[in-house]
């Protein structure tokens, strides 16, 4: 079987390199064509408004909406997939998933560090989180995973969550 193809959406400044490295370690073939890839990845970089503008400028909004093959959103990438976000005074999202991103009510914000999703610890770094009927797993009462059609979104950073994160990405890739 040939390697699965993965396209990582580039739309702003941030650490996309770690996502690339993680999929490279898993033997995926990285390509630029978001439309054709077996798995599209919407990484989390920057803040909501500039990120949406970045997606629009690169023509990625329609491409992501039209995808029927799996798409994985990470952190802000999950939040952008919702219908809207409270961040930056309100930003319209991609609408791939019903719901909205709201500011979290944690003791410390941003919520940074390792927290359990079921019984596995992943690394989180966020100030907003999904409020959505598509939430399928939570961490300390905060949305950790949303699944809707071909879209899976994770609030944590699997690419920065050591071996546990690598296993999570491996599952995403094998389902793609």
């Amino acid at each position: 079987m040939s390697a699965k193809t993965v396209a990582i959406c580039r739309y702003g400044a941030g650490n996309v390199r770690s996502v690339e490295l993680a999929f490279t370690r898993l033997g995926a073939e990285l390509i630029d064509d978001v439309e054709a890839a077996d798995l599209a990845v919407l990484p989390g970089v920057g803040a909501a408004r500039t990120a949406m503008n970045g997606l629009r400028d690169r023509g990625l909004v329609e491409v992501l909406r039209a995808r029927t093959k799996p798409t994985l959103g990470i952190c802000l990438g999950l939040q952008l997939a919702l219908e809207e976000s409270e961040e930056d005074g309100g930003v319209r999202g991609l609408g791939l998933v019903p719901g909205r991103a709201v500011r979290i009510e944690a003791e410390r914000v941003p919520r940074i560090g390792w927290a359990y999703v079921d019984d596995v610890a992943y690394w989180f770094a966020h100030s907003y989180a999904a409020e959505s009927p598509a939430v399928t797993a939570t961490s300390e009462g905060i949305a950790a995973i949303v699944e809707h059609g071909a879209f899976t979104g994770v609030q944590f950073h699997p690419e920065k969550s050591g071996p546990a994160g690598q296993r999570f990405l491996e599952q995403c890739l094998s389902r793609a």
Partner: protein
Amino acid sequence: MPLPRLIPCLDVADGRVVKGVNFENLRDVGDPVELGAAYSDAGADELVFLDITATLDKRAAAVATAARVAEHVTIPFTFGGGIRTVDDACAVLEAGADKVSVNSAALARPELIEELAGALGSQAVVVAIDSAADQVFSHAGTRAEARDTLAWAKECEERGAGELLVTSIDRDGTRSGYDTELLASIGDAVRLPVIASGGAGTTQHVADALDVASAALLASILHEDPQRLVSLRGELKELGVCLR
């Protein structure tokens, strides 16, 4: 609340991890990738690399080191030292770092914090605060800034910082314990996570810091030995600290 974090701090000069007193008599203690990976395997929650390279092109040195670390280390890491502009920060994050830490540059021009948060998100922006007698110091703790520590901490939060890395200059290197009073008062003044730094000598000191702060920076207490982190984690768990 996420779990309390243990964060080994590695000083880097010209691409090597170094150890020295007050940036003098630097001794080479290893490769940042090898040491970083070993700390990751030993249970580190994150890593901090503090670049003290003396050469002019600090950015190139930082980017090269960050890129090498990201190839082999799959836990989050922060890069500090010589970050003065959004471009500097973007270059380091694009190489694979997750956060940047700024100190003197933010004191010289506080708008830098807003610019970094706008471009990278607050979660990627750590402001390091070096404090002595409730006053802020810049330039590796050598220059008094005539700024009240608590007021500066609040200003950093308002400007969009994501975390505060608070070093007590009085305690740094003394092994007499973190300044828990200072950490608690900053923790009360802001809602940001606070990373405790400076003064760790014993396991109990680290446990005490994690009572009042979200994370503890570990430097000389580890003696550049990842195995020490393994034993420290075990001792902290015995003291009832809930670690990953």
